């Protein structure tokens, strides 16, 4: 419906993924030693996620939206001196436009900026985990059924300032379904 919405988001990331010595190199010169902390599936940390979003129709055919999100580790299981790790804080900002002329298919484009502070601790690779990246992300949402939508977004980096050596995709694609109750 045509209105403007301001929402707040709150989330908690739990330390569910493998971390520490649970994942080791299984071949190569480092066989048996733990994989780099920043490359492991889990961080061992409990993170708080805070965010806000804003949505408003700006013309007959266009809506705009913006969102910010902040994630910070508030507790970390790897906390022994010489064997500690805490992931760096991260901030995300996004702003975009949706073309609403056709209710059944809605193109959109958004700009996302992501910044991450360096990981901390003896196990952290502090010089290779900090950086800022900006993406342009075109996407499309299609109404499949009355309350079922399919969406796809392609994320293409347009700016990056990453310290040290970091993995960085040329592009990523997301495809999904959403169902509104």
């Amino acid at each position: 419906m045509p209105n403007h919405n301001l929402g707040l988001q709150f989330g908690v990331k739990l330390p569910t993924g493998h971390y520490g010595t649970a994942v080791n190199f299984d071949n190569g010169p480092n066989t048996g030693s733990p994989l780099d902390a920043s490359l492991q599936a889990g961080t061992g940390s409990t993170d708080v996620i805070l965010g806000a979003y804003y949505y408003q129709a700006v013309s007959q055919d266009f809506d705009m939206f913006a969102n910010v999100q902040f994630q910070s580790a508030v507790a970390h299981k790897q906390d022994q001196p010489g064997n500690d790790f805490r992931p760096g804080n991260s901030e995300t900002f996004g702003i975009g436009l949706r073309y609403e002329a056709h209710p059944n298919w809605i193109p959109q484009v958004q700009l996302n900026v992501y910044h991450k502070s360096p990981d901390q601790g003896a196990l952290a690779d502090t010089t290779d985990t900090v950086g800022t990246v900006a993406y342009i992300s075109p996407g499309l949402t299609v109404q499949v059924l009355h309350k079922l939508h399919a969406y796809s977004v392609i994320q293409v980096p347009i700016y990056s300032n990453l310290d040290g050596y970091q993995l960085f995709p040329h592009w990523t694609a997301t495809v999904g379904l959403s169902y509104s109750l």
Partner: protein
Amino acid sequence: MAALSFTGIEALFTPRADANALRIGQPAPPATLVGFDGQRITTSELLGRVVILTFWATWCGPCREELPLLSAYAAQHAAEGLTVLGFALDSPEGDLAKVRQIAQSLSFPSGLLAHATLPGYGRIWRIPVNFTINRQGVLVDDGWTDKDSTWNAARLERIVTPLLNHSGTAP
């Protein structure tokens, strides 16, 4: 992409029947209100009367401010040939009791707008918005091109009262 086949890829290229087709001085697109009492009222049946289409919602503060004024004006001028149709944009899954309560306090009929788009009027992307149709069924005030289409006493006197003073007949 496979999902496109469900909605019909031809829809991508078909001109929208529900797009904003409003032109001042041209016949207003027909609009049908299904009131909370189940009664259907179509603007094409109201030729000979001055018609105001008003769009409101319970969560819209400016709408709640203009509705009592519009309601009083509608009651005062009904005998002169004024009909107001209220389209509520509240969600069908929302607090319908509250919507009905407000609707019942008004002198004119209201009903829920099933979709955020009204054919010929386009997407109702901001409210309050109002459209005024004269006795000949011609659009005389377009809420989309009028930056502030919220009713106040002066605006009603300027736009609607002169139409009521003309006892024009249907074409």
